[in-house]
């Protein structure tokens, strides 16, 4: 296992789940993520796991809810429209404090859209597309290796916080192959004393629920959840940064889009430009502090996204005061090319310091 293997992103993600001790998959087919269920339908059989093709995404997320409540590491995966259908279930899982993994290999939206790479589901993922005050832990890989590593990490964080986690990737990351190093030692699944498995004689029976009707109970519960989210922000933000002494502009992007940005950074540096690069890996909790510090040094920030500007909100909410910010956005399957990015970065370097909130 300790050799590099060429592997598809979706398969690496599935292997990550298996390595994390996940033995239960519930899901409904949808392009472009079918490699995950197809692979796991065979792979889980090898490790005495259970693969169920559910009748719908709603059934999937609720089977996941049940399996999670029974104490298992379990997962589902889907894409845009299917993830939309899971929002009620994710809200229930967050409300009932159940860990579990949902994977969104995004499509283009809104509607049926298309299956090209897109980052249009950022808001849904980070704001909680369901009802109520909650968040899902969101990790955004940008390589096949991270499809593997962050899947394991997602299970860990989900259990640490008793909160659902979501991997946000797209067709590029799901379909591409890169060399991957798989871990040798599979993870130990932690014991979960809160899980329901039936109550041995003498021990009290347990409840898993999100319904609180008595005065103040629900407000207390909401603040309890809020504290968990604050703790996440303090302890578990993840970020990759490649800052340049004296950088004149900072490029911000996540997921597959950051690969284009990395190419642009190389091109820029080849031309002697001083550019920095920062990539939020955890989209929730958003690495605001890291961004603030880096933006302070750069003074100018160029956000690059494959949507019409969603992380753009979080970037602007977390800039050092006085920074100028610009957005290079391409929705609907358009992929910003390294050349385009470089051009925008150059423009910013040349431009004055005014806050340029324009969208190109």
């Amino acid at each position: 296992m300790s050799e590099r293997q060429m592997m598809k992103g979706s398969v690496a993600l599935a292997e990550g789940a298996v390595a994390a001790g996940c033995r239960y998959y519930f899901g409904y087919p949808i392009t472009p993520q079918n490699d995950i269920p197809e692979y796991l339908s065979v792979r889980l059989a090898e490790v005495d796991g259970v693969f169920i093709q559910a009748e719908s995404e709603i059934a999937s997320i609720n089977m996941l809810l049940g399996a999670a409540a029974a104490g298992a590491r379990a997962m589902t995966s889907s894409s845009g429209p299917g993830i939309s259908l899971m929002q009620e279930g994710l809200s229930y899982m967050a409300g009932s404090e159940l860990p579990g993994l949902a994977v969104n290999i995004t499509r283009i939206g809104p509607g049926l859209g298309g299956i090209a790479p897109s980052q249009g589901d950022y808001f849904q993922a980070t704001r909680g597309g369901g009802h109520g005050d909650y968040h899902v832990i969101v990790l955004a890989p940008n390589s096949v290796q991270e499809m593997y590593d962050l899947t394991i990490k997602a299970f860990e964080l989900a259990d640490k916080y008793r909160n659902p986690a979501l991997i946000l990737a797209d067709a590029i990351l799901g379909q591409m192959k890169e060399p991957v190093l798989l871990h040798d030692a599979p993870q130990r699944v932690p014991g979960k004393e809160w899980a329901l498995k039936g109550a041995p004689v003498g021990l009290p029976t347990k409840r898993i629920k999100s319904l609180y009707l008595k005065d103040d109970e629900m407000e207390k519960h909401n603040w309890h959840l809020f504290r968990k989210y604050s703790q996440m922000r303090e302890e578990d933000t993840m970020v990759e940064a490649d800052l340049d002494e004296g950088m004149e502009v900072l490029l911000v992007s996540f997921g597959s889009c950051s690969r284009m940005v990395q190419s642009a950074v190389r091109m820029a540096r080849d031309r002697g430009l001083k550019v920095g690069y920062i990539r939020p890996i955890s989209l929730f909790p958003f690495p605001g502090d890291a961004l603030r510090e880096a933006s302070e040094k750069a003074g100018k920030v160029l956000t690059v996204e494959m949507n019409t500007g969603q992380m753009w909100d979080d970037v602007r909410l977390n800039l050092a005061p006085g920074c100028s910010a610009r957005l290079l956005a391409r929705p609907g399957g358009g992929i910003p090319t390294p050349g385009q990015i470089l051009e925008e970065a150059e423009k910013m370097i040349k431009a004055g310091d005014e806050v340029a909130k324009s969208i190109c």
Partner: protein
Amino acid sequence: MYYDVILSGFGGQGILLIGDLLAHAAMLEGLHVTWMPSYGVEMRGGAANCTVVISSEKIGSPITDEPCGLIAMSNPSLLKFQGKVKKEGLMVVNTSLVDSQLIERGDLGTVPLPANEIAYQEVGEHKMANIVMLGAFLAGSGVVSMEKVEETVDSFFEGGKRKNIPLMVKALRRGFQHQKEGMEHAG
């Protein structure tokens, strides 16, 4: 070292496979590599293509607008991609299936390769046209060594498919040789 190539043709021609072999060999060379298929629409049939990027440094974009090389196995794929190939890049065209008159880029080191005929007549198996094309590409680009690709072919297949390995090696070598000769010819 940085090289990116688009491999393209119809579904069923084994385009993704030769991309896979190339990427695998590059990995065995210790290089960074990405293999990226085109994400088609949710329907059957049609075109198939993939992009392989090989580099001595960490790879950013796994796709490319201006590839160093192109392997084209169908008319539509030639038409779609030849305009994008970098100046003085490489183009390997399967003239058994592609209309030679469609080749427009004079600046490229292009060798018209009747891969299906070569496969059928020289390798003895018409299904090896894709492998012939890969051999030719290796000769033209030099991006990965022939040894590593042969090593890959040997480690890649399991079970019943292993019996084709000798034929594949033969196809690789025939393609390689044709390209070399063609280039000398042209040079």
